[in-house]
């Protein structure tokens, strides 16, 4: 009987891989950095859409909106009238008066709580202002290094005493902060840092020794959040090396800087080495728990990451204005550039990317602004990956529109291109983030699936019938309905088609995740190319969700140009749908579209010889 066979085969395969699965979920290092809660992305790995997390699209009250708009006006005025980005790039520094004006505008303490002298902005408001500050990348990076990571540790993990002592002067800009994690030998592998903090004899302070590299604001900061290894005695009395975070003042002594780095882009920001030589740090300056520094670092980085989406969207919107102006005025072959299809394509790309980025960023910001401590680290990582790559692609296309003049230093495009390149590298390289996105979700799915597979083993009849039935239905082809469309649907009927595409993708993604876990088990950690596809699919799914949620709201509320939004949303969803289908088919075992084996072979042979190994085309054998 085919039903029984199916059952037996499923159960047997499950039993075999079950042990592997359990091993995977148990051994894999916990990447959770905050109290677990049902955020959206993780459930996608199980083929489920947590509708209430993402529909309706987050709204702010009219009062708050008025306040945000009031903030935007002077900041925008300042950036358009008084910031000379070309000069900053050429001279490699931000003028002192500009920094002072930024301080007086209040931009150095945007997220510092009001009681400590800051503006206490919500994530949404911070994202909104980020759209304007990104008009000058050097200033944006300087401000972000100061508050999004430099002093954020004190807000997130600091004691009341530490907050009261340090935040007021940091919020006013009197003191500047820097985030010191990276070392010459430890970039992406942050856990391997060598800087050491040894507890003194009298246990009253730590002595800090080590070198940090590529620290933004390294030369002008007075307050550093430094991460160093400390030896702590574990619960089982073994001595381990764990990272601890410290608030270090330059006045503690022994803090020196290297010379400013000569960078490709963001040349106005100050980046240099920071050396600590026998710096004495009082024990009161430990940030968070001793040994809990890695978690503090991850929390800090996760909390600011999403704002890259709105910052890039703001930059793209300005770019679209500049580029369309040029395309409408410049004529070739007696027609303006704007009439040619290949140019029009570029504008559609820029508009689409900006729309998706905005939607993802503000959706994430809205989730983060919910009460409690929602864990949106995957969502934030997805926003960062999408926006950094979207930015690079769009700026390159915009430069192309300008043609030869875009290549000249007189035109701001070349500077924007150089400034944009760093986005894919810092704040977690996109490669690392893709691994993080994929593995965190797979870990979550693995845990849930292990439970189900245990039940199968135990012979729980309902679970068995469910699984068999599911497999049968899948193989016969099915229509997926996850509740997004229809009379009680969450999306507006105009975008129902795209919503159906999303549902289909999500369902098959969930199935594929299960298959992958069963196939690889623990070893999936090593399969970076598989993980890359998983991450890409997830990023697309999140993007689709964000645009559908936003477009539905725009239609329902009746915002200006909502039919244009529907166009963009449908366009993106269709594109992403087919990309996902391709990635999903590549993830099948023995898929002909999958070239991973060949890729591995080629790279192995090249890396062996550290060179291109083909014989020259002109070579002869004799």
């Amino acid at each position, binding site marked *: 009987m085919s039903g029984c066979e199916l059952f037996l085969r499923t159960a047997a395969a499950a039993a075999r891989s079950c042990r592997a699965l359990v091993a995977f979920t148990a051994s894999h290092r916990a990447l959770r950095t905050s109290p677990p809660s049902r955020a959206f992305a993780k459930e996608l790995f199980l083929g489920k859409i947590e509708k209430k997390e993402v529909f309706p699209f987050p709204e702010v009250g009219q009062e708050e909106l008025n306040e945000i708009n009031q903030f935007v006006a002077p900041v925008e005025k300042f950036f358009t009238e008084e910031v000379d980005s070309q000069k900053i790039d050429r001279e490699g520094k931000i003028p002192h008066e500009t920094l002072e004006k930024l301080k007086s505008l209040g931009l150095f303490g945007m997220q510092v709580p009001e009681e400590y002298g800051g503006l206490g902005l919500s994530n949404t408001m911070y994202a909104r202002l980020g759209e304007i500050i990104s008009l000058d990348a050097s200033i944006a990076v300087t401000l972000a290094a100061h508050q999004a990571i430099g002093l954020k540790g004190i807000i997130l993990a600091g004691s009341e005493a530490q907050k009261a002592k340090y935040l007021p002067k940091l919020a006013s800009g009197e003191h500047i902060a820097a985030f010191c994690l990276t070392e010459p030998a430890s970039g992406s592998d942050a856990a391997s840092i060598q800087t050491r903090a040894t507890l003194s004899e009298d246990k009253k302070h730590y002595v800090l020794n080590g070198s940090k590299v590529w620290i933004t604001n390294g030369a002008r900061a007075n307050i550093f959040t430094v991460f160093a290894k400390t030896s702590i005695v574990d619960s089982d009395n073994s001595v381990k090396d764990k990272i601890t975070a410290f608030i270090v003042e330059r006045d503690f002594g022994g803090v020196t800087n290297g010379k400013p780095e000569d960078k490709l882009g963001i040349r106005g920001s100050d980046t240099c080495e920071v050396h600590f030589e026998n710096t004495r740090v009082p024990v009161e300056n430990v940030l968070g728990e001793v040994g809990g520094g890695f978690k503090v670092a991850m929390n800090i980085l996760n909390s600011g990451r999403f704002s890259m989406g709105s910052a890039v969207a703001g930059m793209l919107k300005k770019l679209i204005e500049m580029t369309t102006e040029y395309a*409408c005025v410049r004529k070739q072959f007696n027609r303006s550039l704007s009439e040619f299809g290949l140019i029009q394509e570029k504008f559609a790309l820029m508009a689409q990317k900006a729309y998706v980025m905005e939607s993802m960023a503000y959706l994430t910001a809205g989730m983060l602004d919910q009460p409690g401590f929602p864990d949106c680290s995957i969502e934030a990582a997805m926003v960062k990956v999408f926006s950094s790559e979207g930015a690079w692609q769009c700026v390159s296309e915009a430069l192309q529109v300008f043609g030869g003049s875009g290549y000249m230093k007189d035109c701001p495009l070349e500077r924007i291109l150089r400034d944009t390149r760093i986005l894919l590298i810092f704040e977690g390289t996109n490669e690392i983030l893709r691994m993080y996105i994929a593995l965190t979700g797979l870990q979550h799915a693995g845990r849930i699936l292990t439970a189900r597979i245990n039940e199968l083993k135990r012979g729980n009849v309902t679970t068995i019938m469910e699984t068999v039935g599911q497999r049968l239905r899948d193989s016969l082809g099915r229509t997926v309905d996850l509740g997004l469309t229809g009379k009680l649907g969450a999306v507006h009927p105009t975008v129902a088609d795209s919503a159906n595409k999303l549902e289909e993708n999500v369902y098959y993604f969930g199935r594929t995740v299960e298959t992958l876990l069963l196939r690889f088990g623990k070893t999936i950690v090593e399969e970076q190319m598989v993980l890359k596809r998983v991450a890409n699919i997830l990023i697309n799914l999140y993007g689709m969700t964000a645009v559908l949620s936003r477009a539905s709201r725009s239609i329902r509320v009746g915002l200006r140009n909502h039919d244009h939004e529907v166009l963009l949303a449908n366009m993106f969803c269709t594109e992403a749908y087919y990309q996902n289908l391709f990635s999903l088919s590549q993830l099948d075992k023995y898929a002909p579209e999958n070239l991973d084996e060949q890729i591995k072979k080629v790279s192995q042979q090249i890396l062996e010889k550290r060179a291109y190994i083909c014989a020259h085309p002109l070579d002869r054998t004799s």
Partner: protein
Amino acid sequence: MAELRALVAVKRVIDFAVKIRVKPDRTGVVTDGVKHSMNPFCEIAVEEAVRLKEKKLVKEIIAVSCGPAQCQETIRTALAMGADRGIHVEVPAAEADRLGPLQVARVLAKLAEKEKVDLVLLGKQAIDDDCNQTGQMTAGFLDWPQGTFASQVTLEGDKVKVEREIDGGLETLRLKLPAVVTADLRLNEPRYATLPNIMGAGPKASASGNGSADVAPMEAGCRRLGQGRPVNRGLPCAESQEEED
């Protein structure tokens, strides 16, 4: 000597950096979804009032704006720059289009008397209609002396010395308070409303009043017949290419 009270009128206009588009039916310009901000000359007037207050010559600054609900934002900017109180004379959006210098001057005159101010400051003209009439008409209604196109303002006891930029050069007048002064470009450089000040302006704004009850309803003064782009004179210069689009 800080017994003086100042009334500053501010107008919400389309931002100077925006590219103006005429409506297809040529009844006006597109304002929907377009960025608006405080008239630059009004900003200069507010800045002057705030500087006088900082020099302790003026005790209280009241900001006034006539127009639809969005004018609250303009008043709030004035409060963030340093005004103490705001009065919004609410005019429904439909009628706001017909609001002209005559009507606004009447409102300002009434408010100046009601609030017993000693100095009325305005921008010399608004960048949308370029009328350059409101200040003068206000002075007329109040029967107060006026110093227009001011490039320097000095308070001297119960008088105010105003240096005016006129076509022939500079003219200096000494006016007896109370008086009306309109600000010209070189009077000062307005400060930025800092974000902490904008946040602080919130409570000030909610405590401010709505002044529409005190003023008589407006009758339409002039009626706009149409609005369109200037005729292209076909001059061979680089900019004309852009203008066409």
